[in-house]
């Protein structure tokens, strides 16, 4: 193994260690927040009825409520690790089952949005990066506005135009069958994508402009290398690094914002369920979904980091120089 590989390896190991620490702290915060929440878990379990002391003790022992805080945290974490996230107070079902039945909607929505962001955002950025003129100017203006558009405002505008006026897409619900589900997810996916798409388009455009100005590109131009090859080999390859990372970071951030879009469109996804449980104080569900979303978010951010190190060897060279 050469020095470059060992530097790479050290980077990955350090990143992995940070990932584990982040997840541990995040899970601790989630557990502690719910632990500190006003309200008595026994009262929630018994539905507010007063219990005889014997059954109280039985319940306390079963849910480890008689143990110190840190022991309770440990029980919760190891259970969560085995896929047991407790029981929903309102629905009396396993939180993991409730999550499992809703995860595909959220995953589909985030995936659909990511495709839109990458295809349209990067595409628009590349086009306006290479071609100055009307397209470039209008892209700049439109992205400046849509980068500031909150997802729920984008959602109601899309419903108004495409569901109510044009009636191209449905405005509510999940749909049945693959084609119908995709149709139902189209407006939500656009609403979720719109502001990230604008940011990705602008970063892409700027990255391409930056690369096109560089000396090696100018040299290639003066050597008479054909435009298509110039763009592919000299500009896009270098610009790919910032484009990939900004796409990764924005896609990771969709996970949390998806909740808002799911609520507007009445989608039975994780985020909408999280909000509903937060309102009804179904804290086991809030804990479970928060843990899952934070984990996904952190893992995706680490993947972006690792991808960056793979794409750009200078990352590891930099740390070797120290």
């Amino acid at each position, binding site marked *: 193994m050469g020095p470059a590989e060992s530097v790479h390896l050290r980077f990955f190991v350090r990143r992995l260690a940070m990932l584990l620490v982040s997840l541990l702290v995040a899970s601790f915060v989630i557990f502690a927040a719910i632990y500190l929440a006003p309200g008595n878990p026994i009262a929630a379990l018994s539905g507010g009825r007063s219990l005889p002391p014997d059954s109280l003790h039985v319940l306390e022992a079963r849910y480890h409520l008689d143990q110190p805080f840190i022991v309770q945290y440990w029980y919760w974490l190891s259970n969560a690790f085995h896929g047991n996230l407790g029981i929903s107070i309102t629905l009396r079902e396993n939180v993991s089952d409730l999550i499992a039945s809703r995860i595909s909607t959220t995953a589909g929505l985030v995936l659909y949005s990511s495709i839109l962001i990458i295809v349209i955002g990067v595409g628009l950025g590349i086009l306006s990066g290479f071609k100055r003129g009307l397209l470039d100017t209008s892209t700049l203006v439109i992205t400046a506005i849509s980068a500031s558009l909150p997802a729920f405002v984008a959602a109601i505008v899309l*419903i108004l135009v495409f569901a*109510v006026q044009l009636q191209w897409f449905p405005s509510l619900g999940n749909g049945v069958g693959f084609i119908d589900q995709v149709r139902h997810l189209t407006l939500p996916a656009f609403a979720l994508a719109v502001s990230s798409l604008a940011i990705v388009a602008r970063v892409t455009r700027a990255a391409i402009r930056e690369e096109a100005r560089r000396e090696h590109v100018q040299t290639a131009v003066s050597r008479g290398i054909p435009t298509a090859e110039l763009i592919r080999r000299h500009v896009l390859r270098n610009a790919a690094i910032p484009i990939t990372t900004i796409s990764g970071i924005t896609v990771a951030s969709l996970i949390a914002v998806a909740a808002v879009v799911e609520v507007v469109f009445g989608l039975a996804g994780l985020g909408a369920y999280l909000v509903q449980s937060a*309102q009804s104080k179904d804290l086991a569900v809030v804990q479970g979904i928060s843990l899952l979303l934070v984990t996904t978010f952190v893992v995706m951010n680490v993947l972006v980091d690792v991808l960056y190190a793979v794409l750009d060897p200078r990352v590891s060279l930099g740390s070797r120089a120290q």
Partner: protein
Amino acid sequence: MSVAAGLATAAWRRYRAGRQRRTSPVLIASAAVIVLATFVAVAGPLLAPYNPDLPDLSQYFVGPTPDHLLGFDAQGRDVLSRLLVGARTSMLGPLAVTLMCMTLGSLLAVTAAWRGGIIDAFISSGLDILFAFPGILLAVLAAAVFGAGLLAPVLALSVAYTPYVARVLRGAALRERAQPYIAALEVQGASSVAICLRHLIPNMLHLIVAQATTLFGYAMVDLAAISFLGLGVQPPSADWGVMVSENQQGIIQGFPIPALAAGVCIVFVVIAFNLLGERLYERGEARR
């Protein structure tokens, strides 16, 4: 320092660099929108022509009339009056987030840059861990635990945004710390606190103000979303996020004005803050 976070900052700088420099009309328009919104937030209840909370179900979604310029909402309340009164909570929440976040972020950034070594490592890795929480998620969690309302989400968002602010400011503070004039002051025996408060922070002020401006826009989007979800400002209080949610049914029923009007208010103010923040940032960069 996590690479993703550093990259986010670098990408953000690129995103800003994409803007062209000349158009000062944009700057004036942004400032005008912000001044107007601030004025309405302060004087809204005095400006409102009608009682914003008085329902009249016979006026359900009645459209604009000369007396009621934006018509009535789902409960027959005057939309314009509710917009004017709702400006207060809609602006106050983001202001609180911005103030708390900038104070905490500057404090952590300057401490980390000044002390260096193990304290810097501790603060920096603490901030990295905090990156694990997306703002909205932390706000929903806080609202679930401590009850819906403006307070819990505001505190949660302040914490969630602090690493983003502190990271940029720490970099700036490190650069400033390396300047010869700081060393000169230290040699003259000035205390660390005095140097930081009188020299280091004032010299970073352009960056702090630019960050605060952009942050306000982000906080506004997230807080409006939280209120829209029913976990922030509680109805019947007038708030722009709440108004979008209360009148969402009108979109499908063919009465889009009440929900759209509140949405447009949010978007205008956010755009104004974002554009102003970008310009301030560019000016700061140009001055360096």
